[in-house]
């Protein structure tokens, strides 16, 4: 086997995937120190991120007034204010809306077809560095108990290295499809992601709910 050629092909494929993913990757600011990641879910301004990225902090050292102002930095550099239109803390998911059209939505893959051993990439902003890619495999398809009262939530475990700033960012497969949203609801520095089919259902619920309010 020509290792150099193989390595080049892998690198080409990886940069294709990365280019695709970065087009739908945003930085989510919450008025506090640190930032999270988010994924453009629809071209008309809907963005998925982690609930804990936009949650109000009740610690003694945070100004609550500041905590309620959210903004999103798009891949083209624009900074836009964002509204939280839905949140589900037990899934650690939040849906944001910005006033923008024609965004590049993420290619969403069906997480129900995932297999342990498949390659996955996490893209986010670990420790504030924007657009960092880390690679690994699907380590396990299981569940975690979150929320009060506890509820069993399906999760994807991976051996991808994550750090603060990866929260809310996409976990993508080798074809660049989003299979999950990285989160830190459970377990250390090892990757846990909410499967994309759960995210799709959340977004659907949220938009139906938002529609009813508007009527």
């Amino acid at each position: 086997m020509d290792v150099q050629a193989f390595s080049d092909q892998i690198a080409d494929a990886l940069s294709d995937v990365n280019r695709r993913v970065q087009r739908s990757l945003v930085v989510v600011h919450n008025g506090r120190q640190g930032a999270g990641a988010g994924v453009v879910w629809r071209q008309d301004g809907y963005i998925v991120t982690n609930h804990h990225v936009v949650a109000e902090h009740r610690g003694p050292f945070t100004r609550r007034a500041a905590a309620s102002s959210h903004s999103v930095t798009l891949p083209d550099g624009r900074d836009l204010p964002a509204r939280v239109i839905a949140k589900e803390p037990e899934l650690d998911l939040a849906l944001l809306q910005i006033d923008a059209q024609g965004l590049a939505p993420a290619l969403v893959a069906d997480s129900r077809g995932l297999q342990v051993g498949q390659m996955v990439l996490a893209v986010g902003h670990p420790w504030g560095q924007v657009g960092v890619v880390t690679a690994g495999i699907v380590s396990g398809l299981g569940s975690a108990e979150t929320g009060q009262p506890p509820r069993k939530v399906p999760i994807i475990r991976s051996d991808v290295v994550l750090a603060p700033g990866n929260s809310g960012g996409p976990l993508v497969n080798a074809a660049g499809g989003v299979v999950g949203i990285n989160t830190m609801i459970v377990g250390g520095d090892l990757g846990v992601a909410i499967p994309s089919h759960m995210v799709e259902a959340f977004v659907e619920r949220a938009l139906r709910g938002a529609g009813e309010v508007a009527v």
Partner: protein
Amino acid sequence: MSNEPNPLTALSEAMAEAVAKAGAATVMVNARRRFPASGIAYAADLVLTADHVVERDDDISVVLPDGSQLKATVAGRDPGSDLAVLRLERGAASAAQPAPQDPRVGQLALSLGRPTEEGIQASLGIVSAIGGPVRTGRGGLLDRYLRTDAIPYPGFSGGPLVDSAGRVIGVNTSGLARGASLAIPVGLAWQIADTLAKHGHVRRGFLGVRSQPVTIPSTQQKALGREQSSGLLLVGVEENSPAEAGGLLVGDIIVAISGQPVTDADQLLASLVGDVVGKPVPVQVLRGGQPTVIQVTIGERKE
């Protein structure tokens, strides 16, 4: 961006296949108080696992990949290499396939475990180092060990380290070295498993000598007919021991056993494991500077 197969998706699918193949022979082992650990189906009715995760001798169960739970008994243990073999109540497991080639540093390696009933778990890395012989913290001597950078998740001990085709290259254990996850190479592990399944324990040879490594002067190396800069000087020979019966004397320098050069105590221990117990073997010594071969019938070490 298309969904056409590319080298990345091909690699991804190959790894998932390897996990599925090896996962079919990776079982859950319930034999300790804390969460369960993993094991490898070594034959239809035999499971190889880590000795340290088998904390009890009764009430052991094994859960197969299809979810069926089987009772198991301890067929044999070797704390020295941290391996144990469990016998299932019936032959229902599909056996793992060992890799035909020796592992190489740098090759892809997948670490597998099944510590829960939620399915197989895996992490990716490479073979980081091949070392040995090493004395283990549990009083044994491991001829060879593998180190990997694949994450050892909780409960992975006893599970397989596999190559990119899903063939076993080692047995994972966190019980041999403090804070490090090692794998026992499949050749060695299968050999020990064979012995455990047959005899229940690993037979370790006994000579009955105390020794220390010494430098062999160049004139004596010449007499030996090979370049060997050290050997083991006998400073004690136990009474009624195999060494005494064979005629070894204080002052002899052991330089080879069964034709294999012996330069330190680890090599001496390694030469006394397995089938040599109870058999006469040629021990080459330097006596008065001259090479001499003495037949010694190796005894068995009682733990």
